């Protein structure tokens, strides 16, 4: 359980330290991609807790969703259709669902009703 948190901290630290900047023109698309990636990660955690984790599904979902979301948002901007709203709804809803399930697992593991091996 500590490894993902370590990864989170490492990512934040690297992003803070490294002198990389996203061009402002692409910032909206990157933010959509981040949302999609976050959704994939939550999905992965949930699958792992449910012991249904599949590496191929996870990796393809991570990159596929992020790239598709960013590209759709870009196309939407070009066509004057706010497609990014669809991405926000889809990924946002799933993110909260996944988080709810993860929360239940964690609560269960704390109360000891159903121990999850590490």
């Amino acid at each position, binding site marked *: 359980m500590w490894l993902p948190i370590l990864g989170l901290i490492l990512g934040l630290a690297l*992003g803070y330290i490294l002198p990389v900047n996203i061009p402002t023109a692409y910032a909206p698309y990157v933010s959509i991609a981040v949302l999609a990636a*976050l959704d994939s990660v939550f999905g992965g955690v949930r699958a792992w807790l449910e012991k249904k984790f599949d590496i191929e599904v996870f990796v393809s979902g991570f990159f596929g969703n992020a790239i598709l979301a960013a590209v759709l948002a870009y196309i939407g901007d070009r066509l004057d259709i706010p497609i990014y709203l669809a991405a926000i709804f889809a990924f946002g809803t799933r993110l909260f669902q996944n988080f709810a399930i993860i929360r239940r697992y964690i609560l269960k593991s704390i109360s000891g009703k159903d121990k999850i091996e590490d």
Partner: protein
Amino acid sequence: MQQLLIAFFLAITAFLAMLQFKSPSNVNDPSIASSLERIENLQQQVTGLEQRKQELVEELKGHQARMAELEKQGGEDSTYIKHLTQQLDDARILAGLTELEGPGVQVILNDSDREMIEGSNVNAYLVHEQDLLSIVNDLKAAGAEAVALNGQRLLANTQIKCGGPTIITDTERFVPPFIIDAIGDPATLEAILIQPGGIYDILKYWGIQINVKKMDKITVPGYYGPVNFRYAKPVER
């Protein structure tokens, strides 16, 4: 293994999220923020260059004075050199490189002080480059021998053009008030400007402040900018 994978991708996500967080778009409008910075930067550059130009102009004036002195010294030795120097001086006067004085007029222009009529165009109340061009042209038509705008000599190839809120000539930018000094017959120069239907009447209609003053003695500076003929060459016969 699975944990490691999740950790790795969470790291990527966090990295991107942090980049987004860092970018100025979350602080305030990036286009305004960066462009303001850029404008300030460019303004500083312009100020620096203008200062440097002023220094160089001073230096140039010093060199010109030294050159005149040397020419005078050379003229004392030989009549031939004296003759050449005389020709050179005549050519300089013709080219507008010499400071000249004589009788003439001084025209002072400023933007309108009249209250604007509701719904009228604000441009009608400002001094424009056409107004200056028109005055300079009239003065030349009336036989002005040397004309200067705000202390800058106007040569045959000097342009007067619009530069947003300023008016630009060869090397300088000017803001109102505009002062045009012209050497010539004061009565003729004044007459062409204040004739009925002339530029004076037109500008006065809009309340633009124009003041034509006859002068017994007026000084027009020499041109000190670069004179480059890059394309035109004398025809050899």
